[in-house]
């Protein structure tokens, strides 16, 4: 057992950090939120550094690594609020394609993703006020003779991250009259085809733009169907677990920097003749920020490893990251703003970037409440599985 990043994983982090800092660090996010689109150029560089290939299987030109490597990287990108659909592509799309894709689908998308030529996102919400799986309402009507070879998609998905910056989306639709996770099928939909249009929404976090994606009576063949018909719900849930851990990893990186910013301020800023970090109110608040950040990191490490190794408690571990982090990392960012006094509330201080990111992420693909329920159900299931097997 070694619960830390390996030397190699740490090197991935160092390289990523050096690269992003050489590109301007959080200035990239700032350029994005001022209206520039930095995603295209940035993505090419990420691809040059092989980051887009991390989770792609070896046979498709990737590194065949899993969540452990990916979250190690995402901690660093999160530190700088780096724009781009990296978690969507690497934590959701690639594993889904790897697990469920036909050979044809895999060879179409995976090498392209590894090379940086294909970015992907997710289109699940038909209604931005509802939670999963209720928010999935779009129908995929079978149009072929065997009812599984062709479908017609019609409707508008909302809250599609980077909708206009990606080449394809994983789209969830219902192929049966159902409300739960049953009857959901997943599709890979190229966004550059006729009948697919995107429209920018005004997102809270301007570094991560959100789009509406309209499919207008789009006929898709079985090349688009990802995995078994009607039965995509369970794979979607696992994909959401991966995204949950990926998101917590990014926010942990952001929280790590928020602690650094507060420490720097507490050491340099003087008030009443003393550096403000000398006052216990500030000092202890920063200590608590650090504790929460380290705790979130510990949860991410284990959840990533558990997902990669199909551990029986992987679902619980993934849900725990959001249960723990949703309020606590939000508080870390709030407290960093507090520590900075008036300057904390300015556009120039990076605090608001992290705060908005944390708030946007909170209910996206799973609220803390739904993760609490997922956690405790998973816990009860593993405990009851344990009891009869003779373990006391």
């Amino acid at each position, binding site marked *: 057992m070694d619960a830390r990043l390996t030397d190699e994983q740490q090197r991935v982090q160092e390289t990523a950090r050096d690269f992003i800092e050489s590109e301007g660090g959080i200035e990239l996010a700032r350029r994005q939120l001022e209206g520039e689109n930095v995603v295209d150029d940035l993505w090419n560089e990420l691809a040059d550094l092989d980051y887009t290939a991390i989770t792609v299987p070896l046979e498709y030109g990737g590194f065949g690594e899993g969540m452990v490597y990916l979250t190690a990287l995402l901690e660093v990108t999160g530190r700088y609020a780096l724009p781009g659909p990296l978690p969507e592509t690497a934590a959701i799309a690639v594993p889904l394609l790897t697990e469920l894709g036909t050979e044809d689908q895999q060879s179409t998308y995976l090498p392209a993703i590894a090379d940086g030529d294909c970015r992907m996102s997710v289109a699940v*919400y038909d209604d*931005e*006020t*509802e*939670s999963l799986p*209720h*928010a999935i309402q779009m129908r995929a009507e079978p149009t072929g003779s065997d009812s599984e070879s062709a479908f017609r998609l019609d409707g508008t998905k909302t*809250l599609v991250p980077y909708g206009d910056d990606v080449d394809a989306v994983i789209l969830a639709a219902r192929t049966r009259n159902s409300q739960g996770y049953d009857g959901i099928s997943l599709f890979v939909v190229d966004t550059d085809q006729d009948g697919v249009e995107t429209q920018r*929404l*005004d*997102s*809270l*976090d301007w570094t991560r733009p*959100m789009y509406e994606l309209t499919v207008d009576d789009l006929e898709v063949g079985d090349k688009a169907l990802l995995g078994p018909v009607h039965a995509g719900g369970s794979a979607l849930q696992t994909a959401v677990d991966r995204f949950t851990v990926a998101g917590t990893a990014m926010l942990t990186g952001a929280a790590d920097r928020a602690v650094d910013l507060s420490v720097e301020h507490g050491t340099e*800023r003087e*008030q*009443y*003749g*003393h550096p403000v970090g*000398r*006052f216990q*109110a*500030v000092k202890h608040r920063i200590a608590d920020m650090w504790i929460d950040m380290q705790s979130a990191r510990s949860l991410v490490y284990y959840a990533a490893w558990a997902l990669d190794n199909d551990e029986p408690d992987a679902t619980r571990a993934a849900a725990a990251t959001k249960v723990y982090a949703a309020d606590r990392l939000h508080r870390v960012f*709030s407290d960093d*703003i*507090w520590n900075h*006094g*008036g300057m*904390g*509330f*300015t*556009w*120039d*201080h990076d*605090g*608001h970037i992290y*705060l*908005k990111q944390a*708030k*946007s*992420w*909170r*209910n*996206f*693909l799973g*609220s803390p*409440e739904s993760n609490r329920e997922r956690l405790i159900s998973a816990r009860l299931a593993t405990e009851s599985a344990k009891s009869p097997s003779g373990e006391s």
Partner: protein
Amino acid sequence: MDFSYTEAQESFRHELRDWLEENLPDGWLENPEIPSDREERNAFFKEWQQTLAADNWAGIHWPEAYGGRGASLIEQTIYREEMARVNAPPQINLIGVNLIGPTLIEVGTEEQKERFVPNILSAEEIWCQGYSEPESGSDVASLTTKAEKDGDEWVINGQKIWTSYAHIADWCFLVARTDSSGTKHEGLTAFLVDMDQDGISTEPIHQANDDRTFNQVYFDDAVTTDDLVVGEVDEGWDVVMTLSAFEHGMTSIYSIEQEYLDLLEYCQEETRGGTPLIEDDNVRRQLADLDARIQAAKMTHYRNVSTQMETGTPGPEASMDLVVSDELRKDLLNFAVDIKGPAAALWDNEHEAVDETSGYIRSYGSWIAAGTGDIQRNIIGEQVLGLPKDIKSKTSHRGE
């Protein structure tokens, strides 16, 4: 103990309520819309304040001689409550009405009173307040902006920050250092400074909520004159204290309560999975907690007003108001954003009870503007409870 209102107070309430119904901007109650264009917005606010002033509703706590109503504290409480109930537009000359006017009436010269006071309620002259500086933070007394005497003029150099309304203000109530030889509370002087001069420039601060309501103000050989000194030269800290006494009672608890009631309505109307939000256990639980906290803050405010009615100054409970109401608003808006569901990732307020998302970010501003909870807790610990002073407390802060 008696929480009921007298008949006279009730009729004051109804007079105001009737007046509002008649005089609020057209369609306000149905759809309280403020022009988004900056110029238009300022004109809109100015007109609203003139409407208020015309019927003596702009500064009801002012003496009648100056256009007020000499309203009692209870009447002021009723006024705040009613204004919050209809979510009335804010007064653009808030600082002039609540702080500068009362201060001048109390410590200004006759000439200053005659010249300035009449133009405040009607917003003919808009005021800002030059206190904070980039390096002074909440330690106002450590300010370094200098005013040097030159004949019967004073030449001012330095920089102020967090100055609300500076970009539209006609006059500034400025505190500057006129003598650096003593302790930091000594050698300060309060001035009235004409904002319309070359020596003054303002620059809006880009805030976290993408708004720009605060400013930096640069004084570069700006001038004012001897007759515009308030109080005594080098005795400005006394004037600061006089003015800060008028800050008490500017409670936001009524608008918080109104936001809560709007949120309650929203939770009854909005559904999730076909069920109204209000039927969700967790939503109910959190609403109940907020409700209890709001009631506690409101009743503490009442106690405080009652004490002030008798003694003239608010009780020590007044120190609680800022800590409690800022944290309450932040938690309320935080919750309001959370229950939007995944739509919390959007700025738009289609799914909002009021204006949660931007209000939520903005709440960090007022939370910090209040000098942060740390300072309020120091005040309570040291001044109310008599705990030993901090290492810093040889120096000072606002309210000390």
